[in-house]
């Protein structure tokens, strides 16, 4: 029951974290001079009555701490409120989260299936020209500003006609057969996934390389080598398992990192994901939407870490015993 206690302790720990996060973000957003009704105000055909009604609806006429408490109260109850345009926040998030998860999973899958082997290879061939080349290639991918890369990719799509230009589905998506639908989504995912992949590959590859080097340098690998095991056996049987373990922790962070790192890419590709939604909401100071999505992001990060920890405990017997 060590295990259950650990998990529940971890979950309890997240509560103060969530409170601090919500306080920080709420006050920063509300103290900003950004007017959530700007677009309405600039519309000559909108009357003062409409504006007054909107101000009341959004609680903008109340002091900021009351706004916070009323927000927090309904959040705890599970009510995420309405956006400044009057749509249900929960509905908006529900539309976007699956899309973001899809993109994130594809990208994580790609980076892991490429980054981990490459990291291992470059660790084994440490300081060889292969290692060098990999480092440089990965650094090149990381050095292009993501939005710029995305724009170039879009132009590439236009010029070749091989890929659709942004979005997630074609306009005639609903008329396609099931396989057509899958193919359609896959085509749309290619370019944004490629951009995010290029950006996050190098970090993962470097990380894996470092872990592997550390393990290869450890006593038990040396011992295994001394026993006369073949190099392949040493690497795959002994080193690899231990090197991948710390990577699992990274998974949680990467998950949350993509959520924030994908915003500009989603924006350029017009991908209907959470990142773009938050970006637009932040620019408009759409408080309920921003708060809800930031809390979602935070919860996803915490969950990611938690899952990583659990995985770690399951794979690493040392940790299972210690419980920490």
């Amino acid at each position, binding site marked *: 029951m060590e295990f259950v206690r650990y998990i529940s302790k971890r979950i309890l720990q997240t509560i103060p974290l969530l409170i601090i996060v919500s306080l920080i973000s709420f006050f920063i957003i509300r103290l900003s001079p950004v007017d959530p009704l700007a677009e309405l105000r600039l519309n000559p055909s909108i009357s003062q009555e409409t504006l007054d009604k909107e101000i009341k609806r959004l609680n903008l006429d109340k002091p900021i701490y009351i706004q916070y408490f009323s927000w927090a109260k309904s959040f705890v109850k599970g009510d995420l409120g309405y956006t400044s345009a009057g749509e249900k926040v929960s509905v908006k998030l529900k539309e976007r989260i699956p899309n973001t998860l899809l993109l994130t999973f594809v990208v994580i899958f790609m980076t892991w299936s490429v980054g981990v082997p490459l990291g291992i290879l470059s660790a084994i061939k440490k300081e060889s020209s292969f290692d060098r080349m990999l480092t440089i290639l990965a650094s090149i991918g990381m050095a292009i500003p993501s939005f710029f890369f995305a724009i170039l990719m879009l132009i590439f799509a236009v010029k070749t006609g091989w890929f659709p230009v942004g979005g997630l589905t074609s306009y005639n998506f609903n008329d396609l057969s099931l396989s057509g639908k899958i193919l359609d989504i896959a085509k749309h995912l290619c370019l944004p996934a490629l951009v995010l992949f290029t950006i996050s590959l190098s970090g993962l590859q470097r990380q894996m*390389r470092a872990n592997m080097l550390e393990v290869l340098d450890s006593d038990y690998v040396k011992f295994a080598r001394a026993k006369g095991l073949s190099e392949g056996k040493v690497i795959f049987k002994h080193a690899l398992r231990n090197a991948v373990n710390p990577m699992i922790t990274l998974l949680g962070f990467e998950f949350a990192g993509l959520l924030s790192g994908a*915003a500009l890419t989603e924006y350029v590709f017009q991908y209907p994901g959470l990142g773009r939604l938050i970006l637009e909401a932040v620019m408009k100071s759409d408080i309920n939407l921003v708060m809800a999505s930031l809390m979602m992001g935070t919860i996803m990060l915490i969950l990611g870490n938690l899952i990583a920890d659990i995985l770690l405990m399951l794979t690493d017997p040392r940790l299972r015993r210690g419980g920490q």
Partner: protein
Amino acid sequence: MELIKKIFKDPFAKTAFLVLCILYLIILFADFIAPYSNYYANREMAYAPPSKVYTIDENGKFSRPYTYNYIRKFEPALMQTVFEEDRSQKYYIKPFARGEKYKFLGLIPTDRHLFGVGVNDGADKGGEIHLLGTDINGRDVFSRLLFGGRISMTVGFLSLLIVFPIGLLYGGVSGYFGGIIDNLMMRFAEATMAIPSFYLLIILAAILPSGMTSVQRFSLIIVILALIGWAGFARVVRGMVLSIKKEDFVLAEKTLGASNLRIILKHILPQTTSYVIIAMTLSVPSYILAESGLSFLGLGIQQPDASWGNMLKEAQEFTNILYRPWLLTPGVLIFLAVLSFNLLGDFIRDYLDPKGRTRV
């Protein structure tokens, strides 16, 4: 110094190091190298293509390098603006030509520039040379690249100047005292880390007071970038301090009755130097990229000041990419600078910390 020697032995690290040195030298002498100032604009020359520099004249003979001015014409039937060379007058490129007045290195007033084609002072309409063409306001892209580099290449370092003291102290104190203090401080740091950094960046940039001068805005953007970076750094420092504080020499100092602050500052933090150096080279590129991302959204350095990020914003128009490729040069420079920093950072990490224990 051992490090620099090592760098010069490695071809990639050497190249990266040299590229960075050249970039920094160029931006240091930007006023001298650039033929125009940051704000100089000839509105008759908006979106002019790069000046063509000729070294073989129309008779096929070698000549001193010269260029022609462009004339702008509007073709109503095509709704197209075209630039044609005005071949009636040659403008020879003179080294150390007179141009706009400026202060060399901020000290010596002068009007000599590395090269130029003469002064454009109303009465005598001199030549114009735009090595990389002009932007929408008719400003020289080449000159603005140099001045923009001043902002883009320093924003990261200046942020680090704020991040490091905060992170070192915060992590140092937290790790050294441990217990409840450590717990509280780390919870707070984790909370700031838990907010997706890019959104925090946007929110913070959006609330910058609007009545600011460009210098103020620049420094506040630095502070904002720092506000986002400190927590992760502090956490790593704390981890290192946790292990260092158990070492004998720290315990010895303690028994000798040294104050806590003294121990942290004098004995524990210096142990983290190599990590600081690595973190420095590896985090500068992320600041350069962050600045360009902010500018892409219109929240970074604002017009009329130049930064590579806000210059690149102009290059996002489809037709600009197709027909005005010279507007993409800031992207190339961002790429070069970030790549160089990454390569150099990787090398330094491998050298100072061959087992890759420090993670940035």
